[in-house]
């Protein structure tokens, strides 16, 4: 048996935040346990049947007391809520400049692809002290990507992108668990995160077969699957150019605006009819079922990457 622990290792920046609140909650619990259990114990002894204690003028209620012990927990509760909410907001917001890693969950494994193109299964190698952002999706049921040492967890939902970030602070190996029940081998959908020194990480990236970067794969797909046939300046179809699209507001045919985030790009490829860009016809075929989740992620990485280049004006009405 390994060492005996009462707390999991603290290996990320949010681990500390969460633990602080956790310890505070323990203290508050101890406080309430004291104010409830001690009187109970005391009364049970003092006022046990037949004892000689003074029982004259018992109080049967007092609105003042009631209001007091209603208000106190309310205020404490609101404070705890505020604290938890602030941290939660930080945990749930995607960081802007992070090392991007794509993760696809399936029954019953985690498929990981790094921006540089390197792929791994049930393992995640990352450098220490860098902010890592995972984009997660599932190709079947709901899973949940849980790293106890980082105190982060995010459900991985089919049909949509969720994200999770952390900034590891300590090199080492930590558990990855799938914490959402996903079928027979749910308990075996586990893996490990390996947090390395940056140099070691760089070396690790070089090992094994040389791979093309995720953006490069996406670019290749963009041509192989015929996207470029429409989405290029010299196409005979009237289709929007995708340069500079990412994170920009897009006017839709029904008059509303959306921001072109990952989910929007994904939906545009799989359900083009859902949101039609203003000024275009609904001629784009759905690629649902023709692309794997990994390929979609690669395509999106490519579309995102061309976002930074100057977008020529042609093609836009």
């Amino acid at each position: 048996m390994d060492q005996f622990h009462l707390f999991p290792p603290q290996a990320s920046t949010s681990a500390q935040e969460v633990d602080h609140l956790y310890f505070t909650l323990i203290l508050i619990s101890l406080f309430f346990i004291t104010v409830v259990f001690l009187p109970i114990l005391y009364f049970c002894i003092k006022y046990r049947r037949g004892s000689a204690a003074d029982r004259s003028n018992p109080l049967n209620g007092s609105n003042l007391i009631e209001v007091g012990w209603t208000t106190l927990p309310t205020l404490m509760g609101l404070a705890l809520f505020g604290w938890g909410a602030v941290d939660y907001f930080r945990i749930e917001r995607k960081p802007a400049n992070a090392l991007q890693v794509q993760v696809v969950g399936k029954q019953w494994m985690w498929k990981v692809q790094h921006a540089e193109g390197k792929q791994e299964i049930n393992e995640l190698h990352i450098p220490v002290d860098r902010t890592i952002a995972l984009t997660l999706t599932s190709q079947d049921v709901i899973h949940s990507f849980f790293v106890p040492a980082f105190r982060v967890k995010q459900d991985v939902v089919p049909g949509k992108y969720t994200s999770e970030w952390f900034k590891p602070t300590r090199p080492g190996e930590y558990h990855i668990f799938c914490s959402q029940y996903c079928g027979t081998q749910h308990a075996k959908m586990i893996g490990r995160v390996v947090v390395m020194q940056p140099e070691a990480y760089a070396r690790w990236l070089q090992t094994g077969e040389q791979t093309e970067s995720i953006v490069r794969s996406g670019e290749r797909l963009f041509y192989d699957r015929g996207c470029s046939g429409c989405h290029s300046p010299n196409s005979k179809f009237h289709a929007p150019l995708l340069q500079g699209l990412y994170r920009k507001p897009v006017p839709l045919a029904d008059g509303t605006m959306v921001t072109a985030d990952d989910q929007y790009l994904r939906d545009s490829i799989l359900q083009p009819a859902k949101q039609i860009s203003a000024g275009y016809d609904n001629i784009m075929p759905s690629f649902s079922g023709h692309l794997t989740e990994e390929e979609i992620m690669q395509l999106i990485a490519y579309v995102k990457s061309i976002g930074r280049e100057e977008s020529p004006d042609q093609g836009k009405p």
Partner: protein
Amino acid sequence: MEATASLNERTEPTQSLVARQFDDLEQQRGAAELGMWIFLATEVLFFGGLFLAYTVFRSLYPRDFAAASHHTIVLIGGMNTAILLFSSTLMALAVRAAELRNQTTLIRLLLATAFFGIVFMVLKGIEYYKDWTDHLVPVLNFDWHSPNPGPAQIFFWLYFAMTGLHAIHITVGIFVMLTLALMARTGKFTTGNYTPIEIAGLYWHFVDIVWIFLFPLLYLAGHR
């Protein structure tokens, strides 16, 4: 212990109509009425699950829902609304007839209510048949000319689930009305205990109200 001897004090002629757990007819009627209203509250939430799904998907896929709604037959939906509203009026009059101890009118009105219920079902049946021949039935023969038929299929699934559940309620209602009409022939409801009629009326009006919402949501979402 002081006691009201209410148990032994039943001298009214309506005595036999009062179940053993109640003191008098009024208590019994109050209980039945309240019970029915609570049942209707559960019904609201039972249908509510479907209304929630409808709301969520309509907000996710407004265009598909409008397009799909365009394929419903507004004429039948509208006529059916009128029919139900009218039958509800008759039902309200039936309760009144029972209260006034007017046996013949009561029976006639109950039968008329049931009749309009049946007309509703017949029209609904015709509509379902049209839906079938138009290939609008999810899974069984759904054929939607769009690269992405999912949302439209969801619309029609909800359409069938909601109208189907409603139709089940109408059917139950029709049987209740017919049974009550039969029982009314013995004069059971015209001697002062018209609670069953009243309760059945509440049910029928409720089913009417559900349809009042189904009509605009399902039929009128896409006809512009």
